[in-house]
């Protein structure tokens, strides 16, 4: 049974890391978001494996359900035609690679591997260690963590109002933003002007000039 859990953990860990690497390297930003969602989902499975069932469910609800939809909508609203053809990395991306690689290789790995954790003794045979579950979390949220809970709700309200205020555009200042399909049509027209459309365009411009 322990071997099964170990294998499960290794499978989850490898998938999380592969999905994360695909998220930061893949060219198409929509594909990157989808890889990120699959990574979120596997992290939720890892929480279930660690017996944190409430956080596992919250992970699936909030990250897979809400944040990913938000990201996909933002990508949809800000899609530009040139973005998919240009390179996605900064020109000096290798510096950006050195910093995290050094952080992982020189700081995190030696620290984690050399530190002796004060692990609690394993439970006696036949008994299981007491684990705080969803009921205890609920009790804690209305007792000792009541103030942080209220502050978190205020923070969510502020973020909601702030997001609306930032993304809001007044009607007088609104101008026409072409959709992706209209942009494609425009570019095609510029690239190979077919005689009928160009004749129509020239007549249109002539009409507007007069």
């Amino acid at each position: 049974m322990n071997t099964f859990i170990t294998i499960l953990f290794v499978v989850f860990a490898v998938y999380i890391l592969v999905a994360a690497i695909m998220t930061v390297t893949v060219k198409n930003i929509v594909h990157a978001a989808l890889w990120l969602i699959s990574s979120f989902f596997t992290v939720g499975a890892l929480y279930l494996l660690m017996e944190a069932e409430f956080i596992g469910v919250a992970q699936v609800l909030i990250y897979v359900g809400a944040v990913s939809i938000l990201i996909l909508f933002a990508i949809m609203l800000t899609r530009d035609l040139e973005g998919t053809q240009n390179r996605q990395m900064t020109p000096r991306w290798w510096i950006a690679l050195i910093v995290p690689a050094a952080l992982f290789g020189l700081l995190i790995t030696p620290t984690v591997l050399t530190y002796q954790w004060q692990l609690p003794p394993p439970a006696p045979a036949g008994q299981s260690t007491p684990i705080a579950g969803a009921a205890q979390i609920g009790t804690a949220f209305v007792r000792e963590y009541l103030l942080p809970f209220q502050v978190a709700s205020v923070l969510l309200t502020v973020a909601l109002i702030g997001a609306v205020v930032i993304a809001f555009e007044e009607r007088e200042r609104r101008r026409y933003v072409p959709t992706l399909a209209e942009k494609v049509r425009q570019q095609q027209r510029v690239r190979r002007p077919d005689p009928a459309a160009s004749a129509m365009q020239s007549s249109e411009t002539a009409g507007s000039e007069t």
Partner: protein
Amino acid sequence: MPSMTEAVPLSWVLLLAGALFCIGLFGALSRRNTVGILLGIELMLNAVNINLVAFWRYLEPNVVAGQTFALFVVTVAAAEAAVGLAMIIAIYRSRQTVNADEVDSLRG
């Protein structure tokens, strides 16, 4: 009752979270698309949460503080994603671009 504390050492989980954090950091530093930068930040926040839950499960499984803190991190991450994406949409409206290199009006 088999549990993960016996099957997997704590350092493996911490190494997984560290690697995930570094991948997210690389993504946040190297992407030109601002949405891509936000994806990297989300990866880093997830790595931190894995760390919190792992410490709770291995060191203090009968205290709720670890899980509570992880839930607050999730809350703040959701708020950050909402405001960040709203800012990206506002920037796209005024400049017609989501490329972080071209949004440099605060550059000295």
